[in-house]
C-alpha cells in the first residue's frame, strides 16, 4: 500500500525541519487556522526560520511539518516521489507515503498537469465527512492570475483571489465535487511563503 522507500536516506544532505517544534508548529498552526477560517485571506510564513528542499514551497512545508505525522497518509505527485522532498517529509513528519489517492489524509501537488482527477482523492463518508483528503497545490503565485470571487462561511460578503496557473477546468472539477456537500475536498494553495485556503464550503465565481 505504501510506496517502498526507493531512495536511501542520506543524513549528510538532509535539511533540518523545525528548530523549535512546539513553538513553531503553534504559530504555523494559527496561520493555517486563520486561513481556513477566512477562506481567500493570505497567510504568510515569511518570518519562519525554515529552509525546505527544492521542490516544496515554504508554506506547504510548514503546513505538513505542523499537521502530518504517523497517523496521516501523505500522497505525493509523481514529480515529488523519490525526491529529496519525499525524504525530507518522510524524515521530519514520520507520515507514511501512499500512492493510493483515496487513502490520503494530505496530498501535495507540485504540478497540476500530472495530478489525478480530484475525484480520486477521499471525499469523506456521509457520516464522517472529515475523513476527506486535504489537498495542497503549489502554484507559481497567489496573485496575477484570473480573478476568482469567493463567497461562503468565513467570508465577509466576498473576497477576490487570483492564483496563477489554475485553469477553469481545475475549478469546474473542484466545483462538481463540492456540489455534493458534506462530501468534498478541502484545498490549500501555496506559493513561496504564502498560502490561501479554499475549504469545500467556499462558492467560487470565475
Amino acid at each position, binding site marked *: 500500500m505504501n510506496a517502498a522507500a526507493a531512495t536511501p536516506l542520506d543524513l549528510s544532505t538532509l535539511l533540518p525541519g523545525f*528548530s*523549535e*517544534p*512546539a*513553538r*513553531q*508548529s*503553534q*504559530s*504555523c*498552526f*494559527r*496561520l*493555517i*487556522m*486563520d*486561513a*481556513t*477560517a*477566512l477562506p*481567500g*485571506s*493570505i*497567510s*504568510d*510564513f515569511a*518570518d*519562519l*526560520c525554515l529552509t525546505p528542499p527544492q521542490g516544496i514551497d515554504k508554506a506547504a512545508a510548514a503546513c505538513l511539518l*505542523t*499537521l*502530518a*505525522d504517523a*497517523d*496521516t497518509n501523505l500522497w505525493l505527485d509523481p514529480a515529488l516521489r523519490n525526491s529529496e522532498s519525499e525524504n525530507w517529509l518522510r524524515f521530519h513528519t514520520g507520515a507514511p507515503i501512499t500512492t493510493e489517492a483515496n487513502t490520503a*489524509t494530505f496530498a501535495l501537488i507540485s504540478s497540476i498537469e500530472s495530478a489525478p482527477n480530484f475525484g480520486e482523492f477521499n471525499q469523506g463518508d*456521509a*457520516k*464522517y*465527512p*472529515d475523513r*476527506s483528503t*486535504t489537498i495542497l497545490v503549489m502554484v507559481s503565485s497567489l496573485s496575477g492570475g484570473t480573478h476568482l470571487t469567493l463567497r*461562503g*462561511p*468565513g*467570508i*465577509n*460578503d466576498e*473576497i477576490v483571489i487570483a492564483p496563477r496557473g489554475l485553469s477553469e477546468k481545475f475549478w469546474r472539477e473542484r466545483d462538481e465535487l463540492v456540489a455534493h*456537500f*458534506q462530501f468534498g475536498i*478541502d484545498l490549500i494553495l501555496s506559493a513561496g511563503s504564502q498560502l490561501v485556503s479554499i*475549504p*469545500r*464550503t467556499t462558492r467560487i465565481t470565475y
Partner: protein
Amino acid sequence: MNEISEIKIDNKPPQERYYTYAYLDEQTKRMIRRAILKALSIPGYQVPFGSREMPLPYGWGTGGIQLTAAIIGPNDVYKCIDQGADDTTNAVSIRRFFATVADVATTEDTAKATIIQSRHRIPERPLQSGQIMVLQVPQPEPLRSLEPRETETRAMHAYEEYGLQYVSLYENISAYGRIAATAGYPVMIDERYLMSPSPIPKFDNPKLDMSPAILLFGAGREKRIYAVPPYTKVRSLDFEDYPFETQTWDEVCALCGSDTSYLDEVVLDDQGNHMFVCSDSHFCAERRENGHLGPLAGHSLAQKSDDSNANRVLQEGIAK
C-alpha cells in the same frame, strides 16, 4: 474583504521547564489541530477526536481546555469565564494554568483578549475579528435527548433528517406556550448542520450569527470538536407562528443600570430580597467605571466584587 493575518511566527527557544509547552504532547496537539481544521471546513459538523485526560477538575470538562492548549501561543492574551464571571474558582484556576504552562498574558478585559474560553456565556461586548471563542460543551449532540443512539443521530446529521427536532420543539410550544429550552437552544449552521451552541442561554444565540470571531466548541467526555467560522449564518430554530425570541427582563442591572445585558438574580437575605445584576462581570465593572449607575449602585455586593477583583489582580501580579 478579509485582512491579511498579522500572526507573528515564534522561532524563540523555550525557557527551561518540566512539562511540554501548553501541557499537551505534540502528537495530541496535531490530532486536535487537524480536527479543528476539518471542523472549520464543515461548519457545525461534530468531528470525533481522541480526547486526553487533563489535570483539571471535571465538570469544567476537558474539551475546551484541550482546544485552548492546542491553539494557544505566547503572544496570546487569554480570558476565561465561568457563567459570565472571571473570578469564579474554576475560571481563575484555568487562567492560572495557561499563564503557567503557556507563558501567556491573561486578562479580564474582553476587548484585549485573543482567546476567550467560556462555560455558559458569550461576553456582552461584541466579539471582534481576530478573536477566538472557545466554548466548553458537556453534550455536543443536539438530538441526544430525542435519540440516545449515536449511530442514529450520526445518520440523522448525515442525511439531514431533522424532522424529529422540529416536532419536539413544536410539541414543546403547544404544551408550554413557548419553547422551554432556555439554554443549549439548537441552531442551524449555514442551513445544513443542526448544532448545539453549548449551554449558553438562548439570549446569546444571536451573537453567534455572522460573528467576526472564530467559534470553537469542545466536548472532552464525548470526544467531539466542532466549529463555526467567522461570518457564518447561525439560525436558531423557530416556526412561522412562534418566532425565536430571547429572554428579556423587566429590571435593569441593579449595579450598572444596563438594560441590554443578561441578568442573574442574586438573593440578598433570607427575607426574600433580591436584585438582578449583569452575569458578565467585566462588562458590568467597566460600565460602573464609566459612571453608569444602577438603582443599587454602591451596594455592598458591588463593593465586595470590586475588592476581590483588586485583590486577585494584586496576587496575580505578584505571582508573575
